[in-house]
């Protein structure tokens, strides 16, 4: 079941497991997915996925609807545990060389380090302040000064501070859609995760709000490792460093974003990114 932690290319067939970088700088692997099969009850959703996600970079998952992007993303913080009958049937997912499906792994600790932003923005119907402090309060933090500081830092981090600093104690639901999504990002970074998973974070936003979030993603990768699912080719091209293309539950190609879009190694990838199917 276990395979070497960072083998350079173990995926069978077409997919090289690590984006072949033309850049000289290489960042260490943070998430190491090896030969993962995943099933919802009897229906298989992922087949033999192997890929390594490097630290402090933006990795995009693309592919037609239903190909398993969200499924793989939700494996990374074990959100799939919520679904009855869903399980990783084979393979391993390691974060910093620790298999997160080991029985002694505490999902609570895992999710503190692996934050998530959802497709449909889901701020709690509480004040902006309470939304941001939710995660820290759970951990027992009640020092007002410290909470205030985290609220400001997170909102600044999510490029929302100037827009909401005068209304911190009004409901988060009073914000616009784009602001709500950035509030969710602020909420996620407030607990200081290492990795942020984003499942189509802009799919409900208009172009201007989308541009803001994309800009934000660009800034966030200084501090966080980001994995983003998107249906928007331009978005993947604009804001990711590496791109993985999935089709019918299989990883078809994983490479530098530039390579995927300019010079894909697989005809299916080419067809998809050029908009000929999917």
């Amino acid at each position, binding site marked *: 079941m276990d395979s070497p932690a960072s083998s350079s290319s173990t995926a069978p067939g077409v997919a090289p497991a690590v984006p072949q970088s033309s850049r000289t700088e290489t960042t260490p692997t943070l998430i190491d997915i090896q030969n993962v099969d995943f099933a919802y009850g009897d229906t298989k959703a992922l087949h033999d996925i192997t890929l390594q996600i490097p630290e402090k970079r933006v990795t995009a998952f693309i592919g037609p609807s239903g190909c398993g992007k969200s499924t793989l993303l939700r494996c990374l913080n074990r959100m799939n545990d919520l679904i009855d009958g869903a399980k990783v049937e084979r393979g391993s997912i390691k974060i910093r060389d620790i298999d997160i499906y080991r029985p002694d792994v505490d999902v609570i600790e895992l999710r503190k380090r692996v934050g998530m932003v*959802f497709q449909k923005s*889901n701020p709690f119907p509480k004040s902006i302040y309470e939304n941001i402090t939710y995660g820290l309060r*759970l951990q027992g933090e009640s020092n007002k000064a410290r909470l205030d500081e985290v609220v400001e830092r997170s909102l600044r981090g999510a490029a929302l501070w100037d827009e909401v600093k005068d209304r911190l104690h009004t409901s988060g639901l009073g914000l616009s859609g784009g602001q709500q999504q950035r509030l969710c990002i602020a909420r996620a970074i407030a*607990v200081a995760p290492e990795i942020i998973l984003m499942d189509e974070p802009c799919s409900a936003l208009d172009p201007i709000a989308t541009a803001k979030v994309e800009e934000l993603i660009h800034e966030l990768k200084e501090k966080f490792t980001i994995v983003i699912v998107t249906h928007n080719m331009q978005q993947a091209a604009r804001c990711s460093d590496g791109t993985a293309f999935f089709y019918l539950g299989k990883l078809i190609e994983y490479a530098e974003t530039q390579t995927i879009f300019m010079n894909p190694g697989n005809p299916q990838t080419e067809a998809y990114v050029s908009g000929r199917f999917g």
Partner: protein
Amino acid sequence: MSDQSQHLFSSRPSARRRAESGVAWIFRLATYIILLAGVVVFGDIVIKGSRTVFQSEFPFINVAFLTEAPKSLYVFEHEGEHYEMADDDFRDFRESVEAQALAAGEPAPELKAKTYVYSAGGIFPNIVGTILLVVGSMTIALVLGVASAIYLNEYAKQGAWVRFIRLAILNLAGVPSIVFGLFGFGMFVIFFGWNVSLMAGWFTLAFMVLPVVITASEESLKAVPMGFREGSLALGATKWQTIRKAVLPYATPGILTSSILGIARVAGETAPIMFTAAYVVRDKLPWQVEQAMDFFFQGVMALPYHIYVVSSKIPQNEYSERVQYGTAFVFLAIVALIATSSIILRNRLRARYRW
């Protein structure tokens, strides 16, 4: 050219149109019949009941009816005058008459009185008893019901077993209340040895409304968006933290709404309490107990049972009718009061936890 008044959309009589208006009238009629029945029932109780509960002189409310225990009414003639007196007044009156006679050296006159049980005094112990029964049983039903709804909806693995449990709970809702009465009698009164007591009544009534509370709580929990749970869990919350902070607050208004229906049912049912908690008469008020524990193991008088006793157990007469309707009126007023306060509480919560 055709007739000026005929245009593209002008109406033409047809069978379809006639059926349309006929059907609308049938539905309208059905609604009005129900409305009429409701008005008659409530009107009857309010008109007859308010004769007992209200009075024309200050303080306009019949205070004695609301604050005294039920007493027997003595109706008699004395020296050509007609008297109606409660039993304690009658005793005083007779003593004074006898004392007068003794002083005058005459033989004491015999007062030939007709007695009507429960037709004098008031219904204070019944009001207290009903309120105690409602508060206690709703507390038990809410605690147990919400807990099991949380288990079924949030924790249990959905499957055949949970579906079976749900089905069993739904069936429980169809069981007649007299069966709950018998169950409570066998289980709490006899087997647990609680005797006829508040405890036995609380649990019997609680079990009767549990299906309603569980089903409604589950619906309210389901109505809370999945996104709240996911958002909370993704921030490293435990399941229980998620339920407490991101689910339950938003489900509470819905849970309360349905519990309001439960209140009316618990307050009104006679069958479940007649073997388990209700006394026909009891001299002591519930708080007149020697030890704190005795409080839970005493029977009480209750409004619906009082109506039942007065209406069916004693010969009917003009005096008992006053009590019946007065009690029914007070009963409706109390249910309305409890329901109104729950609705106000519900609306407060809803305004606070809106999404």
